């Protein structure tokens, strides 16, 4: 069938006008993550429940595609969580410390200009990049959350050679997910021979190349559970470290901010109990 004669130039250019307001939880990364991760899982569940009795071959084909889309959505929801958490760190530290920590984030003049009115420096610095590579993520958080004028000492996730680190499993599982996300996003779920070689190294086991991912409901569920756990763990780790850095800054210049106010802000934004220079912030 020939495509209907429509003004595609106009219709496509109108798409960016179809917008809704950002939800309030977008200011709090962990809540934003929970809501959207659950939304993706609910999408799969909704389809599963409401297509009982459909023609099996068609249902299976559709659900296979949907599972890949849901995994992609879950991983990208986690990526956005990382960006939003980093943006909070930037907003809390910029103006309170004068070292070069923000240089680890690439930024264009256009991005800064776009955020100028909103005064959301963190978003300007963190939104532009992709956060889909553990080495880059470690480098960014390490620098962002370094002690003032010191080299990075904070390690977000362990390096692959830190065999005794109890969190190494998180790093290993996340690296596999980044690679699977790549295959879904860029190769429509095809595990190319190159992807297979990378996956083989990451999981230390054979992976056949030139195949297509056929995810099960269980696969999607385990991704969801893993990322739920990882996001909560990361959120607490970042919040505690940010509070430590702010405490160090405060020790150097106690007139810079009131610890109780900053502790309260951090507790509400991260939904975690934190201590800043002896003051405790508790989520309400």
């Amino acid at each position, binding site marked *: 069938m020939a495509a209907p004669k429509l003004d595609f130039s106009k219709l496509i250019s109108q798409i960016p006008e179809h917008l809704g307001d950002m939800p309030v*939880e977008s200011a709090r990364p962990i*809540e934003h993550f929970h*809501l959207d991760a659950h939304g993706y899982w609910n999408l799969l569940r909704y389809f599963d429940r409401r297509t009982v009795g459909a023609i099996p071959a068609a249902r299976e084909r559709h659900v296979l595609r949907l599972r890949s889309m849901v995994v992609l959505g879950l991983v990208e929801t986690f990526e956005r969580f990382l960006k939003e958490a980093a943006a909070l760190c930037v907003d809390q530290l910029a103006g309170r410390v004068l070292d070069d920590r923000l240089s680890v984030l690439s930024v264009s003049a256009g991005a800064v200009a776009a955020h100028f009115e909103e005064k959301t420096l963190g978003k300007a610095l963190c939104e532009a990049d992709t956060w889909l590579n553990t080495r880059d993520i470690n480098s960014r958080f390490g620098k962002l959350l370094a002690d003032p004028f010191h080299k990075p000492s904070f390690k977000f996730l362990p390096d692959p050679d830190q065999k005794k680190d109890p969190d190494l499993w998180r790093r290993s599982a996340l690296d596999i997910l980044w690679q699977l996300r790549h295959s879904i996003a860029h190769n429509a779920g095809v595990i190319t021979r190159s992807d297979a070689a990378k996956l083989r190294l990451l999981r230390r086991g054979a992976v056949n190349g030139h195949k297509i991912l056929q995810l099960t*409901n269980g696969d999607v*569920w*385990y991704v969801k559970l893993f990322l739920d756990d990882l996001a909560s763990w990361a959120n607490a780790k970042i919040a505690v470290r940010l509070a430590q850095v702010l405490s160090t800054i405060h020790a150097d210049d106690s007139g810079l901010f009131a610890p109780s106010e900053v502790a309260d802000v951090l507790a509400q934004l991260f939904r975690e109990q934190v201590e800043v220079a002896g003051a405790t912030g508790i989520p309400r």
Partner: protein
Amino acid sequence: MAETLDLTAEELAKWLVERAPERLWGVDGEDQIEMTLSLPCTGTELAAELARRGGRLRLSGPTDEHAEPHRDLGHLSPVAYGKDDEIIFRVAWLNDGKEGREWLIETDLLAEEATRLAQAS
């Protein structure tokens, strides 16, 4: 006409703890709970969140005249849907007696099955 039951969040929480504490429960359409909890979660966890929030709820039973209410859920049977192991509640918050938007509390059979498979492997 659908049967309805008004109760406090604490009463529903108590029911969850007594009748289905280990089941995995999802929520669909209630953003405040969905952003707070890692869902689906156990009946015990959902109960704690409902009790923390407090307030009054209205549960509405099946509207379809052919739909059968759930059989074995105590005083919540007339307002629950679902076949076999599945339990679904249509829920709305009540504010000054006025019913808010409906949302769902439902057992997550998909997650429960996947968890069983993982534990058996």
